[in-house]
């Protein structure tokens, strides 16, 4: 038994026990948790080093259309009974939810390999050694490194009174750093299910290299520029496009740009975006938080908006099949493992194809300014460069942008063949002919 994890058998036994306590006509149970460890560093030393472990059991008790939900992180008999009683009491005094249309039945699931002992067993000393690699690389250039190395293992067990039983466990590791000089900074990161796939030397080299390039940035006036977006920036834009726009519930409530536009060509031919919960290039998960098997959903094909993401409730309401994108308790459908298709260019070609433009390493603190227009504002950070006549000529001070993701993907005219895992999405770098920078900051 792995310390901090329940394992499939124990988790399912626990879920069965909770189900047996429920007086509900229908009952859903989730048991989620695991271990999470993180070493954080700044100014070339470890300033925080933590570990946590625990599980939360959540029960949803349903009488007719009356629903109550309760959760506890204490898994002893008494606490579980208390949680079931609390959920039952709430359901009893509840008004019927006329939109409630049942819970999913049993299903069979794929079993992707997602658990790696190398990650689970990675120790605080192992993390410290990797951090030292980055700190040494930064110090060798007179820079300061900050960042975090996190590793963890999580498990999810779902069960309901219709016989649905689902269990999944996986590991994840992420190493990221911002390397800083007195006048600029650079970013590097890597994430993987298997910690052995993370190379601290490579992460350090990327961040130190960017920091060296980003020396004494000068201001360039705000305005419209051609841009080359590196994958982290692209991933954020893809996230905004999909989150609000392609959730079926958002469309049915009239708050998506796709209202009345599904099937239309809204984007450049180059744009292909899909969600695939089982693709190991991302972080696979065989089912959603309602226990519905995940299926690949093609959101955009050659620029045409094709399909929507459904949870159980929205699918039933609209007479569709759920796609495996539900959250526990009906929070609405959401994407989980996003991909954008590759182009045919290299990064060098994107830059060489830019007459006068800006190279963006990544964005900072972005926020949706208008959901129907997918108008997003945010800042650039950790390496913003001016490109002239196909060459990077100098670093520039960071910009604020206020731009629509719809326009970005409608006009993108080149993408790299190489794709990178950036956060929760796998995407290429792209070239966009016009991007609206609306302000400049002082660094």
């Amino acid at each position, binding site marked *: 038994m792995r310390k901090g994890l329940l394992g499939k058998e124990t988790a399912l036994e626990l879920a069965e026990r909770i189900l047996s306590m429920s007086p509900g006509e229908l009952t859903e149970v989730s048991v989620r948790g695991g271990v999470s460890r993180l070493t954080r560093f700044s100014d070339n030393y470890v300033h925080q080093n*933590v570990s946590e472990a625990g599980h*939360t059991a959540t029960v949803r008790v349903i009488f007719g259309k009356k629903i109550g939900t309760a959760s506890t992180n204490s898994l002893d008999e008494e606490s579980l009974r208390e949680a079931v009683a609390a959920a039952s009491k709430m359901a009893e005094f509840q008004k019927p939810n006329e939109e409630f249309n049942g819970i999913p039945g049993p299903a069979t699931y794929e079993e992707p390999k997602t658990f790696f002992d190398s990650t689970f067993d990675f120790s605080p000393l192992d993390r410290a050694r990797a951090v030292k690699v980055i700190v040494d690389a930064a110090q060798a250039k007179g820079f300061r490194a900050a960042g975090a190395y996190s590793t963890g293992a999580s498990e999810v067990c779902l069960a309901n009174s219709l016989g649905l039983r689902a269990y999944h466990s996986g590991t994840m590791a992420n190493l990221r750093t911002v390397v800083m000089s007195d006048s600029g900074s650079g970013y590097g990161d890597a994430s993987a299910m298997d910690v052995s796939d993370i190379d601290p030397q490579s992460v350090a080299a990327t961040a130190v290299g960017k920091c060296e390039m980003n020396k004494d940035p000068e201001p360039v006036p705000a305005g419209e520029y051609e841009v080359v977006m590196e994958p982290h920036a692209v991933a954020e834009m893809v996230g905004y496009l999909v989150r609000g726009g392609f959730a079926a519930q958002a469309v049915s409530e009239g708050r998506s740009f796709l209202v009345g536009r599904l099937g239309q060509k809204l984007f450049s031919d180059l744009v292909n975006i899909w969600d695939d919960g089982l693709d190991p290039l991302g972080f696979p998960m065989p089912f959603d938080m309602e226990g519905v098997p995940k299926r690949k959903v093609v959101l955009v094909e050659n620029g045409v908006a094709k399909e929507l993401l459904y949870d159980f409730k929205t699918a039933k309401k609209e007479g569709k099949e759920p796609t495996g994108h539900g959250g526990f308790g009906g929070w609405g459908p959401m994407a989980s493992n996003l991909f954008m298709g590759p182009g045919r260019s290299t990064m060098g070609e994107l830059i060489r194809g830019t007459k006068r433009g800006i190279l963006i390493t990544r964005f900072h603190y972005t926020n949706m300014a208008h959901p129907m227009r997918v108008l997003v504002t945010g800042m650039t950070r950790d390496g913003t460069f001016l490109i002239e006549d196909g060459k990077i000529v100098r670093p520039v001070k960071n910009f*604020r942008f206020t731009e629509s993701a719809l326009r970005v993907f409608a006009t993108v005219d080149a993408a790299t063949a190489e794709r990178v895992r950036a956060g929760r999405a796998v995407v290429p770098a792209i070239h966009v002919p016009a991007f609206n920078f609306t302000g400049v900051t002082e660094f």
Partner: protein
Amino acid sequence: MKELTSLALEKAKRLGASYADIRIVDKRQESIRTKNGNVESMTSSRSRGFGVRVLCDGAWGFSSSSTLAPSEIERIAQEAVEIARASATVKRGRDIVLAPQEPVTAKWESKLKVDPFLVKAEDKIKVLMEADRLMRSNKGVRVASGNISALREEKVFASTEGSYIEQVRTETGAGIEAMAADKGELQRRSYPNSAGGDFASKGFEIVEEMDLPGHAEKVANEAVALLTAKQCPSLTTDLVLDSSQLTLQIHESCGHPIELDRVFGQEAAYAGTSFLTPEKLGTFRYGSDFVTIVADATLPYGLGSFGYDDEGVPAQRTVIVDKGIFKNYLTSRETAQELGQVSNGTARSDGWNHIPIIRMTNVSLEPGDWTLDEIIKDTKEGVYMETNKSWSIDDKRLNFQFGVEMAYEIKDGALGAMLKNANYTGITYEFWRSCDAVAGKDEWHLWGLPNCGKGEPGQVAHVGHGASPARFRNVKVGVGKWQ
């Protein structure tokens, strides 16, 4: 409980820790969300556990568990020491040292009138359903939603320096929102604030004071009216902000950059650093003479109020900006001593499983002596903006941009046409230096924000901000292409 805390502290000391503390936390929450005439969710949750933090070989280690048993407490104390020893392999040239703090033995409890956990669910649902019905009486409303939530946190803190502190805090909050959408436009209006409403360290009386049903029709009518309102023009003009939008302005452009851990780079790879570097302390002109900002964890009912922080330091009032001059940071014991200071008590954690980091308390703009009416009458041309909708700021907290739910033109000292999609942008110190009027006490409100994210692993703090309406000269509004 003392036996359990002693077990952890003794074990850590035996294994070589020079300092250790333990927090045992029991947190209970209840919430009800309604949407379009249905109870969308009704949830109750409880989370119990403990965390042990140690200094060993001059470096930090922390571990935590939800199993509150003697053997597990000893195991976690040992793990925290092992983690600290790993940290010590990547040190600066010096050990981590804590600013001195007198040991405290105390009990503290927040005050309330009506225990929100004893109010019947039917009564809570009735309030929300009435507001929901009234919002949807305007047929232009696509989604009407509301929520009421309550939280109680019971916490024990003990340290190897001899502190033993027991605290109980209760919070309650509520809010409603109407969403209207038509012909490619989408507008929201909320009451009393966006992002879930208003929250305080109070009981259910806060929900009664709000009178959600009494404001429901106005909220709905404004959301629908915004659909066809004039687009906020793009220009540089005078800007008047209501109290609720000012709280977010304070939060992002003052509250975060004064966190001393941020200043020292401890958040650099995530949320960023701060332009308020230590050489600016005591001399930097952050704002105009009208700008005095205070961090006060002792304010009654504040969402950022408490008795003692999670290092056992008493809650206190600290002047951050005094008549425009930057005077103080928010500090912890570790960061304060780097500046030769003692902690002003702002290290807080959001649960048993996370370490304390510097968090805002109640960071507020002190009231001035105007009224909102007087400010508008005194403004020849400008824009009045209410209630935050979107926010963004750079990683040193200089260049910001905020969007609001609703705005009005100001023409010749009076409110004119309603404006939609209004936003404004600026550089933090230029913006605060342009402040030339702040309304007085009668229009000052202490808002609660239960959603301040910081740190890795991510923590969510509950903080407070007080403000009354204020005016800022020559601000860029209407940013972006909207046609």
